[in-house]
């Protein structure tokens, strides 16, 4: 239905010196599923936003055509019928309170007559398999569920072209597999054109029609079929990791002790009363499906959320510790990188962390080296809020490492990172904690590259939190 042609596409952010996209020539064929990859910060999000018209392409900077019709000449009210974008961040992508109301809102925008809305809404929810979420409050849904709703909205709007910007970055493997299945159905049965940007290439090899890469010099090239096997080789298929971890033997040094700790959100029980010990000077991985309560557990550990039972840090009940002192002992790396930032430029952030750091491992020389390692050199004066998602994540982790609090809780530290960055990061983490003896507790859906760092594994599932040897 719609070929998409990018002609001489060039884009420079007003605040940036160099163009983010440079003279791009490419045609995406209709009814195909294209996987778009490329290192962090090469402009995938920028390209997708340009293709939906969310970023305005300045005149004479090239042209984007849908079936020969330039995007700029398609009426704003028609655009959503042509092309829809699903975002990386599952939050702040809905205007309304409930799932049903959001779908109604979208259909009203498309000027669907009131008497047809009901049927379309029901069909879209059924197609994605989330009919039971219909009346749920959007803010009470887990990340994976929100992404499913976002897909349902796109299905209901019936857009020809579906663009997805790392839609699975905070989605568990099961939800991811189910979303992928729907996308394939949309291509095969409804003839949609799908372009999906992702770093984690797990599972795509047999599903996609073509793989397109943004090269470091900002060009688009299709990866020849012959090279696919090497490209996908690094990514084990989901569920096939045969990684094994030890179970902790008890009389080790406790870091946190949970006594009859139970977690609830609203009327929803997340964790049955549980006794558990987390160990000091070891790194623990926590896995579990979307919405099982992993982030809630972290928030309880740093006293941002209420819980039942008692949590002790080393020897003290954490409720008895002074907030300020405790915050210096146990720091949380938030799921959303921006939460961690307090200043304006990268350099200011680095300076602040250095100033208040708990230890002196991070000398200026070590920081420079780390910046280099993480490929952030040259961004020192950039305003943090203009960094790409992956760049933000790397900076966030570096900032918290510099702080050197004895315990670092990391919520999805690999979110939105390409494989190179993951490897660089894991190397940095390993070399740092070998010297600083910090304890890490890590929540992650994405395991590729993370394994060398992990000593123990906790599974958070179905209201239970237990040590497990395997996934």
């Amino acid at each position: 239905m719609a070929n998409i042609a990018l002609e001489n596409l060039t884009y420079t952010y007003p605040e940036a010196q160099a163009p983010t996209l440079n003279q791009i020539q490419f045609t995406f064929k209709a009814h195909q599923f294209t996987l778009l990859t490329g290192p962090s910060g090469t402009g995938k999000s920028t390209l997708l936003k340009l293709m939906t018209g969310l970023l305005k392409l300045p005149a004479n900077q090239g042209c984007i055509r849908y079936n020969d019709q330039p995007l700029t000449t398609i009426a704003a009210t028609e655009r959503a019928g042509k092309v829809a974008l699903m975002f990386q961040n599952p939050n702040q992508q809905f205007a309304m309170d409930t799932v049903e109301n959001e779908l109604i809102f979208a259909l009203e925008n498309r000027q669907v007559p009131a008497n047809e809305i009901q049927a379309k809404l029901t069909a879209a929810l059924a197609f994605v398999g989330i009919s039971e979420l219909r009346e749920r409050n959007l803010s009470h849904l887990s990340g994976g569920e929100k992404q499913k709703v976002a897909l349902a909205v796109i299905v209901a709007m019936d857009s020809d072209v579906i663009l997805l910007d790392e839609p699975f970055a905070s989605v568990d493997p099961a939800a991811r597999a189910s979303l992928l299945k729907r996308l394939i159905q949309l291509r095969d049965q409804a003839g949609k054109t799908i372009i999906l940007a992702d770093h984690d290439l797990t599972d795509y090899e047999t599903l996609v029609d073509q793989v397109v890469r943004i090269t470091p010099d900002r060009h688009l090239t299709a990866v020849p079929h012959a090279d696919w096997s090497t490209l996908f080789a690094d990514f084990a298929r989901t569920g096939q990791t045969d990684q094994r971890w030890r179970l902790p033997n008890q009389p080790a040094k406790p870091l946190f002790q949970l006594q009859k700790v139970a977690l609830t959100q609203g009327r929803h029980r997340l964790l049955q009363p549980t006794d558990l010990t987390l160990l000091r000077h070891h790194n623990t991985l926590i896995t579990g499906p979307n919405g099982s309560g992993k982030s809630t557990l972290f928030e309880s550990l740093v006293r941002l959320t209420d819980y039942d039972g008692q949590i002790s840090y080393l020897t003290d009940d954490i409720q008895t510790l002074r907030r300020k002192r405790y915050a210096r002992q146990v720091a949380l790396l938030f799921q959303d990188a921006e939460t961690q930032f307090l200043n304006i430029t990268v350099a200011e952030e680095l300076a602040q962390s250095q100033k208040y750091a708990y230890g002196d491992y991070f000398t200026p020389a070590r920081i420079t080296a780390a910046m280099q390692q993480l490929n952030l050199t040259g961004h020192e004066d950039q305003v943090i809020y203009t960094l790409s998602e992956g760049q933000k994540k790397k900076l966030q982790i570096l900032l918290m490492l510099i702080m050197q609090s004895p315990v670092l809780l990391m919520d999805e530290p690999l979110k939105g990172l390409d494989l190179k960055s993951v490897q660089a990061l894991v190397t940095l983490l390993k070399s740092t904690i070998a010297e600083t003896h910090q304890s890490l507790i890590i929540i992650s859906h994405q395991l590729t590259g993370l394994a060398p760092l992990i000593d123990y594994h906790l599974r958070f599932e179905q209201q239970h939190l237990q040590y497990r040897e395997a996934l």
Partner: protein
Amino acid sequence: MKWAKAWQLSDIILIALIGIFFGAIFMGTNYVYDVLTAALAPVGLSGLANELLLGLWCMPGMLAGYMLRLKGSATLGELLAATVEMFFGGQWGISTLISGVTQGFGAELGYIVTRYKHYDWLGLTASALTTTIVTFGWDLARNGYFKLQLWLLILYFVVRFCSMFLFGGVLTRLITDMLDRSHVLKSTHTN
């Protein structure tokens, strides 16, 4: 100065969000208010608690006016914040809305009298002054201030102005200076 610039969807969401955020921060100051009110009630000066903290509550309007530099942004900023507050645990109901309008319009007036040209100390001071005057005028009626003794009225007025100037003026300026430096507003607002 871009006079004709119309309200965009993201501007509207932005000032509503700022209003809500600030409201959520001020909630933490409620205990200050309660303690002061209770302590001053026996001597009949409990209004001072309100006067001292009112600048905080008027801050979203003054800040929206100063930050967005659109005609009506101060009024709208305060009004949207009040609308949300009315529905969300606002036990003061409709009077929240009326206060919102008076506070917002008071702040706006300062920018009007400086012809939307003085986004500097003059504009901020003018806005603090007009906010004080307008809200005070309203309290003469609503809170029965017109029946109070003159010395008390003067005291309240002076305290209120100081609060407006400190929170709505100085604090707003410090915040917007940081914003200017971060360039985050640049892409949408060119002045």
